[in-house]
């Protein structure tokens, strides 16, 4: 990382001013700048082009760029706000903003809903839930019989699908999360609380 690379000169596609991003997100300008350092690192890890490709996200999350993972796919999809197949800096900061400990709960609840609504139908359906449970169990090597998985999905719908129409809508989801706030604890990244504190290295790039 060259010390002379100042934020103002190396414009990359999708670069946005930290001040602008700071105004839209819970991050301070300095924090957006710190995130830019992280973004640069991630976006050059596989393809040297300054945008994050799916492989690069997978590499960062799992240390394996060829891993297939349902949830990482969904995360990538949601971060890619413009739906152009890559994550640009502005998208990266805005999406991470949702994971900030002080981001509004509604945003987190909505983000989780979109994440779980695999087919983007506006509802979380039984099949989607089942698919997620299967994916999860597959990753964790937890072998449960189909019957047990069915029982878990049934229980979930009994609890969440308060209207009983066989699908979970945003309203039901919101209501359920309100009662079980820990369900969206995965929507908060404590790391974002104070980026400069946790990652002093981001703010003082090495001089060499």
């Amino acid at each position, binding site marked *: 990382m060259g010390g002379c690379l100042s934020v103002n000169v190396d414009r990359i596609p999708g670069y946005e001013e930290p001040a602008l991003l700071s105004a839209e997100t819970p991050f301070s300008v300095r924090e957006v700048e710190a995130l830019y350092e992280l973004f640069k690192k991630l976006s050059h890890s596989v393809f040297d082009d300054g945008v994050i490709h799916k492989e690069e996200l997978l590499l960062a999350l799992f240390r394996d760029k060829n891993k297939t993972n349902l949830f990482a796919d969904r995360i990538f999809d949601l971060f890619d706000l413009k739906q152009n197949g890559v994550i640009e800096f502005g998208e990266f900061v805005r999406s991470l903003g949702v994971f900030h400990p002080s981001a509004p709960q509604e945003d987190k609840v909505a983000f989780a809903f979109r994440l779980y609504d695999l087919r983007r139908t506006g509802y979380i359906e039984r099949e989607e839930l089942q698919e997620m*449970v299967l994916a999860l169990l597959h990753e*964790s090597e*937890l072998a449960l019989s189909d019957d047990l998985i069915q029982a878990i999905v049934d229980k979930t719908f009994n609890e969440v699908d308060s209207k009983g129409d066989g699908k979970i809508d945003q309203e039901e989801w919101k209501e359920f999360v309100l009662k*079980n706030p820990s369900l969206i604890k995965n929507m908060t990244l404590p790391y974002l609380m104070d980026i400069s504190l946790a990652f002093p290295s981001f703010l003082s790039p090495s001089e060499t």
Partner: protein
Amino acid sequence: MGNGDCVGKYRFSRTIGEGNFAKVKLAVDTSTGHPFAIKIIDKDKIVRDDYMRCQVKREIKTMKLLHHPNIVRIHEVIGTKSKIYIVMEYVSGGLLSDKLAYSNRFSEQEARKLFQQLIDAVDYCHARGVYHRDLKPENLLLDRKGNLKISDFGLSALRKSGDVLSTACGSPSYVAPELLVNKGYEGAAADTWSCGVILYEMLAGFLPFDDRNLINLYKKICRAEFTFPQWFTEGEKRILSKILEPSPEKRITIPEIEDEWFRVDYKPAIADESHEKVCVDDVAAAFDSTEVDSDEHCKTGMKNSSSFINAFQLIAMSHELDLSGLFEQEDEHTEKKMIVSKHTLGETMKKVEDAAADTTLLVERVYNKMKIHPKMTRCTRSYGDLSAEVIKVAPTHCVVKLSRSSAKLGDYGKFCQRLSSLLTENPATSTEKDVFKVLKRNNSIIKDLRIPEEEQKSENQDLWGYSSS
């Protein structure tokens, strides 16, 4: 036995304290006229599932075994169908928090005496593997002679750990930084931090970290951003700087606190362990009225669907959606591992303990989470953060989620190996098929019986022991 204003030989008078799960009432032993403080716990609220029942029972037993002049003694535990009564020593001098509120600040001599007593008691408990986790002036009582007594030591199951961090339950001013950032933490170091905040407050008359804005307060705590008032002596500053160290690894340990400043007029307390025989049978008896054997519970007690995890809970706990990887350097990437267990929750936790039995690791239960760290001696001390969380997925299926943030951890490899072999052993009893028959039946019941909202909530909290703030 427990009708309204009497239980056993005790007659209640006024309420002297009230919390989420318990009420404390002043009571008089009608045979002797001695006063006692009785903590009344609603069984329904706290011991909903087998695991909580075991946990609370274990903690009360532990607390009963703590005999230290600076720790509130438990005399007796009485159970009725719906309540548990913990009969405790009555400490009449009030709370330290009240005293702090009406006296500006304490003299060095007074503050040091209370601090010495606090450290003495905390050290005593830590040596027995018991951590307080919620030390604050509201939990410190004073007797008539002005000596300090810690209450609720070892009763962390009676508090939801999430409460410490939530605004609803007061300020997190006494909470160590590592708890705020939701990292794995070690009970001893967190208690040490709280002792430091208490010492500062006694000497200054105000808190070291204070801000109306919770986020700012968090930041201040995480950075250990505080200043010393000009009247603090060098000795005071030295000890406080070492205690209010944000990194638990660098923080001074309880045994190291005994420095020059601390030793002035220090009279170590003499713990009276052999003084009398302690009987803990009453603790078990107090729970018996609702006690259901855990295996039996699987077969008969499945009137609600809490035997299964909610799929969203399963998703929320998985590492699949964990973006922390973005922020971790490759070399410091915390190792996370899931081990599947074909056993009930209780059995699985037992096995985690068994796996650590012959190693140099010490297991500490906090709800269904287990903290595992190297056994410590007074002089050598190394920190490692390994936590194991046991999650019930189905009646006889659990997942043990191990996360480790420290590379060097004694017998970690050996522990993992033993744990996986213990957990994959086929349970002698019921096969999955048998269990499923029960589930099927149970399932049709769930459909008719919606779980009351409150129950869902607490069940969920029990699962993780905390809720996100």
